[in-house]
């Protein structure tokens, strides 16, 4: 608690501190805007003056026009929604599935030892390479794309969360056991809540990984979605379309990440790891 005995000069200190913090924030914001503007201007100029190939690099005004046309004709939104739904399904299912697998490994330590080398191999395997198999197995469509995203996220999630389960201070488990707690109660009352921050941060990492899975999945099989838009643009040599899609992906992915961070902040009031 701040000391309130003589607040005059202390309030002045606080005021100066806040003013300085505000000035720094403003400066950072301005620099960020300047950087973006400079990048766009340089890009535009580089293409217009022929320093860069227009076919390959397009330029900002052309991209803006393409995006505006796509949005106006109503074709952009379905593509965005398709990809957003697939990505969300991917990271949610990947995180839940990974947590469930980690719980099973915790419950059956022998299984964990048996499966260890297989998990390591699976983890180092580029999972998107499984895409063709999913397309044949689940049919060309949403399911194959979502499964690709799940494949990318689930193994690393399992390993991370199982690792967390095992490093929890044994004394927390002892507390539950001392009160006659069953193995299930040890898991539910100590292991799982102690791992919640790790699970949520896995969720955040999986947002990014899920995008990789979904875009590759859409490259392979989709008829709709931002990944499809990129492949289509490439096939007709319309790199303006490719870059436009890329920019939309950047914006939507950042929004999604922000949303998950917000959920993270809301989820555990008062929670502090010792």
């Amino acid at each position: 608690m701040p000391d309130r005995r003589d607040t005059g000069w202390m309030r002045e200190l606080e005021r100066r501190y806040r003013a300085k913090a505000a000035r720094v924030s403003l400066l950072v914001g301005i620099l960020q805007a300047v950087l973006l503007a400079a990048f766009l201007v340089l890009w535009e100029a580089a293409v217009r003056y022929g320093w860069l190939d227009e076919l390959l690099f397009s330029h900002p005004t052309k991209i803006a026009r393409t995006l505006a046309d796509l949005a106006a004709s109503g074709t952009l939104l379905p593509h965005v929604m398709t990809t957003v739904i697939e990505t969300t399904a991917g990271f949610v299912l990947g995180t839940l599935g990974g947590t469930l697998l980690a719980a099973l490994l915790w419950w059956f330590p022998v299984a964990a030892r048996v499966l260890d080398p297989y998990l390591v191999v699976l983890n180092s395997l580029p999972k998107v390479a499984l895409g063709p198999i999913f397309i044949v197995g689940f049919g060309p469509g949403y399911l194959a794309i979502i499964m690709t995203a799940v494949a990318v996220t689930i193994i690393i999630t399992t390993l991370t969360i199982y690792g967390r389960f095992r490093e929890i201070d044994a004394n927390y488990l002892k507390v539950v056991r001392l009160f006659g707690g069953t193995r299930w109660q040890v898991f539910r009352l100590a292991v799982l809540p102690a791992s919640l921050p790790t699970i949520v941060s896995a969720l955040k990492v999986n947002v990014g990984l899920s995008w990789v899975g979904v875009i590759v999945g859409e490259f392979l099989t989709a008829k709709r979605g931002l990944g499809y838009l990129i492949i289509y643009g490439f096939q007709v040599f319309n790199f303006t379309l490719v870059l436009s899609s890329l920019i939309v992906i950047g914006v939507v992915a950042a929004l999604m990440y922000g949303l998950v961070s917000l959920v993270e902040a809301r989820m555990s009031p008062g929670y502090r790891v010792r």
Partner: protein
Amino acid sequence: MDVMLRLSGVSHAYVGPAGALLAVDGLNLDVATGEFVSLVGPSGCGKTTILNLMAGLIRPSRGRVEIAGEAVTGPDPRIGYMLQQDYLFPWRNIRDNALIGFEIAGERSPEAERRIDRLLAEFGLAGTARRYPHELSGGMRQRAALVRTLAREPEVLLLDEPFSSLDLLIRLQLEDLVWETVRRRGVTAVLVTHDLEEAAAMSDRVVILEASPGRIRSVLDVPASIRTRLPSEARWDPDFGPLFQRLRSLIREPEGGNAGHAG
């Protein structure tokens, strides 16, 4: 005298990749109902192992552990256990932490909640029910852990160096609090500590153990003048100095031919 806790011929070996390691060897110990016994000894004398055996967390490799005449086969609601640190769950507030014993037993009820609120108030934690552990000082947290342990009214309290992580002043306060609580409720207590002063000030009987493997070297009865006083006051008793010296000499005594291997 009623025996609350009895260890007869208890040996325990931990088995690992390096082979079997004898932690406790042929221990015989009776603790009477309402008695306060301290176990002191160098590290490696199996103090925590003995408490884990009494709590039913591990089964002895040899021998028998009994509570009120029955064999201990697993954790028992009649036995409360305090750890070296509070180990309150950081994601639960103080009240929910204290209620965990009821919750595990499937007995969480408005009545149980009222009892916890009463206990929290009794231990000076009335305003902290909705606070989280990290918001409390070390002494308050250890008091909350004591409430958690006492919530289901155990008849035996096992104390595993519960004051070792606290500042001296807080430690003295908590010693008094635990001592009073144990006496007032007629609870049987076993305290494990490496602090000889603490052992002498709190208990009726001090058991001196030797290390690797843990076995009883000698047992010292505490004079009545010290036994009946609060631990913080007992330290000023004229009999306390001699008792402490006696304890110290007992613990330092060379162990015959084994002296070279000890510690």
